């Protein structure tokens, strides 16, 4: 059975179209990622499926409940972590947790096993005010609070934005554990490396889902000829590669540059050309697309 069935959701704010006919399904226990830039409509989508705002048209059914009619029943079963840090900064870690537990009519002890793995990081600071925690710690506390009532479905709106790589990794390890508990998770992120950790992802742009599939199939579906190039003068390289005939689209990619070759692209010709421009240690080979490459291609279109 599907945990989430969304059909043709549209949401407008004045002239701006936040969501433009979005449809998707999420299976029970699935870890579903929504990948896209700021302003693509992710937050509006979360708010609609969290019963916080109403869509202009379309339907959303979560856990068998309609988001408009059955919102009261649904709210008992949803865990939601909004994009901004939304806990009480002037309450301590402990107080926040027990407050949110009472909101759902439970106690921190009742579902402690669910948050234990996360809360152990916070335990030493339980008397500290939430506002004084570091970014990574705040996110962990927010996750604990969203989980404390043992929700059937968890919505996380950009939980790792502004969080350092180590905390991000820990955070995703926790999500994987929660998935083992049978909780369906919908998470949005601007980090492409995190997309690979999801069961399925949706690439969203300007209020539309451009692609929905497993990360692997999305990568495999990348049909453009992708090349990787590296030399000892990386700054200049990008401009030089772009200027070369037969290179259609070039962009920096960590320590190397990626580019998509057009028709009649001649690898040896590029090497010679680069050497002529004074580049040394030239490494040029075909590359395998990552999710980020897929995103770059979609973003360009």
């Amino acid at each position, binding site marked *: 059975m599907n945990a989430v069935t969304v059909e043709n959701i549209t949401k407008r704010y004045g002239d701006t179209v936040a969501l433009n006919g979005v449809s998707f399904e999420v299976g029970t226990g699935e870890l579903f990622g929504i990948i896209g830039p*700021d302003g693509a409509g992710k937050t509006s989508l979360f708010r609609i499926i969290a019963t916080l705002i109403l869509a202009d048209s379309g339907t959303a059914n979560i856990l068998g409940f309609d988001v408009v009619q059955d919102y009261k029943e649904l709210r008992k079963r949803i865990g939601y972590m909004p994009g901004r840090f939304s806990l009480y900064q002037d309450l301590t870690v402990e107080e926040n947790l027990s407050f949110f537990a009472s909101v759902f009519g439970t106690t921190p002890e009742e579902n402690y096993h669910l948050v234990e793995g996360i809360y152990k990081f916070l335990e030493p600071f339980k008397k500290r005010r939430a506002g004084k925690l*570091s970014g*990574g710690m705040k996110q962990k506390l927010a996750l604990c609070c969203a989980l404390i009532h043992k929700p059937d479905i968890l919505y996380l709106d950009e939980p790792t*934005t502004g969080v350092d790589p180590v905390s991000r990794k820990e955070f995703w390890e926790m999500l994987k554990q929660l998935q083992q508990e049978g909780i369906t998770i919908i998470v949005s992120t601007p980090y492409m490396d995190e997309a690979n950790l999801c069961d399925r992802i949706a690439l969203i742009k300007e209020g539309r889902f451009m692609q929905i599939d497993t990360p692997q199939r999305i990568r495999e579906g990348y049909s453009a000829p992708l090349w990787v190039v590296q030399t000892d003068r990386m700054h200049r390289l990008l401009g030089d590669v772009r200027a070369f005939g037969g290179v259609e689209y070039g962009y920096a990619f960590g320590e190397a540059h990626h580019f998509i070759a057009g028709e009649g692209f001649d690898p040896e010709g590029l090497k010679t050309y680069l050497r002529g421009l004074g580049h040394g240690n030239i490494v040029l080979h075909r590359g395998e697309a990552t999710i980020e490459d897929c995103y770059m291609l979609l973003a360009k279109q």
Partner: protein
Amino acid sequence: MGEEIVIHAEELTKTFGTFTAVDHISFDVRQGEVFGFLGANGAGKTTAMRMLCGLSKPTSGIGTVAGYDIVRQSEKIKRNIGYMSQKFSLYEDLRVWENIRLYAGIYGMRDREIADKTDALLERLHFTRERNTMVRSLPLGWKQKLAFSVSIFHDPAIVFLDEPTGGVDPYTRRQFWEMIYEAADRGITVFVTTHYMDEAEYCDRVSIMVDGCIEVLDTPRNLKERFEARSMDEVFHSLARKAKRTE
């Protein structure tokens, strides 16, 4: 990249009560360099950056920025640097050109010069059509690009960027970095913090802070060799795992 040293920090330390946020850090940044200042949340990056910008006094140690002492000449420093952070960048309720006008005015630029440079800037950013748009209604990525352009509008010696690309999508982030390179090519030194490790690769040199100390400082290539890592992400993880403090 020039040989001239524009940022010099020597044993810079900042303590808050018994807590040492920044612990005797020393480093130099050369003119025109893109310097990545990395570290986990709470490692002390923001505190260090504040001291360099003349916003907070060090408990001990010496620092000069653009040739001025960070303790005694902080006002001069502020005239010669640009600053942009993810949190505060532009006034949302002002139009694009009004924001530019405001910041240029703060740095005492003349009207004529402002008008000419504004046109050139909007042209370069392909923003000419957005001249009269309220900043509020621009997408985040555009705001960040505009904020960066505004922060270097007065041609500062150094620009400090505090997580400039947080939450921005990969496509816009790349456009942003191309702007950083352009600035560096014009001789502006770029001092940048980021949580994206692919961006660390784009820096000329990076330092990684752990628990208030600068643990390593080198080019991304040398660091990867030293840690036998394939990416900066791995370097960062192997270092940050050692962190004792979580705050």
